[in-house]
């Protein structure tokens, strides 16, 4: 009996399909938004297609639909193998998969309709928030039930990172969603003003920490060693950087509110802990890269290794940039500019996206028992995505720093603003918005190529050796 029959790989395959599908949709919406900023008529004159309504659709789709489904695919594959026991309940697996997809579809309908809570990355209206909580609990029971019934004594490092996500996302989502419904589609948060802002960014930054970082690190700790057939570089380092991440990340939220009306002590805590985060973040990066020791020759030939190396490198880059931008003096320039957008995308496209495709190019051949359909297409995807990211973030760096400097420029003769008309600082950015569109479009094309390649892999005729076994 193969492990695929022992463990429920049908659920893994479903989550993989959803990852690619929603990834393409989320990135397509991103490309449309990029076009709207470069050329406003792309808002189409319809309420449902304006930037203000579509941007939440983009962020929610790439965070919760693309990344979410990717994390679930990887966990439903790796957790049973690490614990040597199936997931706790096949029914809960189904509830989790279909419930999550229903939530995504309802988000895709409600957000363009303008049904929103108006808090970034927490826009979904209260009935959907309730559904998210219920489906998340189904997942948590499935997850902890499997751990409870495990047939190995110890928990491997990947499981620690998964566990930190399951626990923390529950706390964040429930707390930040506390609101009083006024109608079926509208509610008002129990927190108000600066307290609401603090709770929101405590949620927002730890969604980055515990959805876009720790589970992906867990996935790295399972899939990277598997892909290169090398043990993790340092067990001790993994212990230290895991606990440091769990303890430090949660404090960092106020760096989104520097120089705001948030009390100074909270701003300072946010800044100090954000700077400290560089240590455990780079601990994870080093542990990932050093796991490749002795396998660097594969970087030339194996697309999976290429994707992992770029993913982990971007993790290191964006976790250096993040602490930098959390320093008050830097934030004074970068805040409210496109630099932030560039930073987010070096993490999202560079770290999460590249890690997702590194995982999928290894995982799809595993669960379907076939060779990857085209190594060449995967390599082409790699270059499209990598060059696309670089174009994107360089355009955003230049746009952000340009606008930040123009906003603060003072005419030395008059002592007044050098660019008093805000429009002057907007029109400077248009060429960079076109450049960003190009970068995003390249990344999207890579994703579509991956979708085709993985689809062809899944429906390839079984190789002879598998047919004999069957």
């Amino acid at each position, binding site marked *: 009996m193969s492990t695929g029959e022992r463990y429920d790989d049908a659920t893994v395959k479903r989550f993989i399909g959803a990852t690619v599908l929603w990834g393409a949709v989320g990135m397509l919406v991103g490309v449309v938004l990029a076009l709207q900023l470069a050329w406003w008529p792309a808002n189409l004159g319809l309420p449902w297609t304006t930037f203000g309504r579509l941007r939440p659709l983009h962020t929610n789709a790439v965070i919760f639909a693309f990344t979410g489904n990717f994390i679930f695919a990887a966990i439903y594959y790796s957790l049973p193998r690490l614990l040597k026991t199936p997931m706790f309940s096949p029914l809960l697996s189904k509830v989790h998969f279909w419930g999550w997809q229903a939530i995504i579809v309802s988000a895709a309908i409600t957000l363009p309709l303008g049904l929103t809570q108006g808090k970034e990355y927490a826009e979904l209206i209260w009935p959907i928030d309730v559904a998210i909580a219920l489906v998340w609990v189904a997942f948590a029971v499935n997850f902890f039930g499997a751990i409870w019934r495990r047939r190995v004594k110890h928990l491997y490092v990947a499981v620690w990172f998964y566990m930190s996500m399951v626990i923390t996302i529950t706390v964040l989502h429930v707390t930040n969603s506390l609101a*009083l419904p006024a109608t079926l589609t*509208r509610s008002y948060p129990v927190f108000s003003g600066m*307290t609401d802002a*603090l709770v929101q960014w405590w949620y927002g930054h730890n969604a980055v920490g515990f959805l876009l970082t720790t589970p992906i690190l867990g996935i790295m700790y399972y899939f990277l060693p598997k892909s290169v057939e090398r043990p993790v570089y340092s067990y001790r380092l993994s212990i230290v950087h895991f606990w440091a991440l769990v303890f430090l990340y949660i404090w960092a939220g106020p760096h989104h509110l520097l120089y705001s009306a948030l*009390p100074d002590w*909270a701003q300072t805590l*946010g800044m100090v802990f954000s700077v400290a985060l560089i240590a455990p973040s780079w601990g994870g990066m080093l542990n990932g890269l050093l796991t490749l020791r002795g396998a660097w020759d594969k970087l030339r030939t194996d697309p999976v290794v290429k994707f992992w190396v770029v993913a982990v490198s971007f993790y290191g880059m964006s976790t250096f940039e993040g602490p930098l931008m959390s320093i008050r003096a830097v934030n004074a320039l970068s805040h409210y500019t496109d630099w932030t957008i560039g930073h987010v995308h070096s993490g999202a496209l560079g770290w999460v996206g590249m890690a997702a495709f590194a995982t999928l190019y290894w995982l799809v051949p595993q669960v379907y028992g076939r060779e990857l359909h085209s190594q060449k297409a995967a390599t082409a995807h790699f270059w499209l995505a990598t060059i696309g990211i670089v174009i994107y973030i360089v355009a955003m760096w230049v746009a952000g720093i340009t606008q930040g400097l123009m906003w603060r420029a003072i005419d030395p003769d008059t002592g007044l603003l050098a660019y008093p008309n805000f429009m002057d600082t907007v029109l400077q950015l248009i060429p960079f918005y076109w450049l960003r569109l190009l970068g995003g479009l390249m990344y999207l094309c890579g994703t579509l190529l991956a979708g085709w390649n993985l689809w062809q892999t899944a429906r390839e005729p079984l190789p002879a050796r598998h047919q004999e076994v069957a």
Partner: protein
Amino acid sequence: MIHGEESWHRKLVEHRSALMAVGVTVGIALGSLIEIVPMYTVAAGPDMADTVAPYTALELAGRDIYVREGCYNCHSQMIRPFRAETLRYGDWSRAGEVAWDRPFQLGSRRIGPDLARIGGKYPDAWHYEHMADPRATTPGSIMPPYPWLLDDKITAADVAATVGAHATLGVPYDDTSVEAVSRSLEEQGGGIVTRLAEARIDAEPDDEIVALIAYLQKLGAS
């Protein structure tokens, strides 16, 4: 993936999943509580909510439209204490000025300018024309037009639900009945309609644009 001899971490934590879950929970609870709880327990000077009047029914309706259209995706409402910001936007923002805000709308990106003190900066008619066609008032603007706000209507029953929810959450509204909310909407909306008429603009008190103008004119005007 094999790590040789049994480490203290393996024996203490990795063999006990419950202990690891507790460790993670304590780890994240510490920072969360230390940052969030003092927002309620530590006095931040005089009760700043006293300095700013709560939103009227019409302003709340306008605020709902502001949130619905996702204005916060392009406009901030938080002026930082820098000379370049106070020159451009006016005095820096205080916590009391957003004390009634549910949800808060500080924003994170200025694709357009900050709006914390937009109130009173332009006449009502400017906002009307700006929402109908941003380039009519601001040449080169990249903002999309919002012509549907000129036609779509607010209803007193819907706004009363909003006012009622805010009252339940502790905002001091005396009368949250539909009749009282309706009277308040007509009174404040009528004033805006009159000012628009002076600029030869035809509007009704229950047009969405009127509510949005009421909200924008309240920002920073206390």
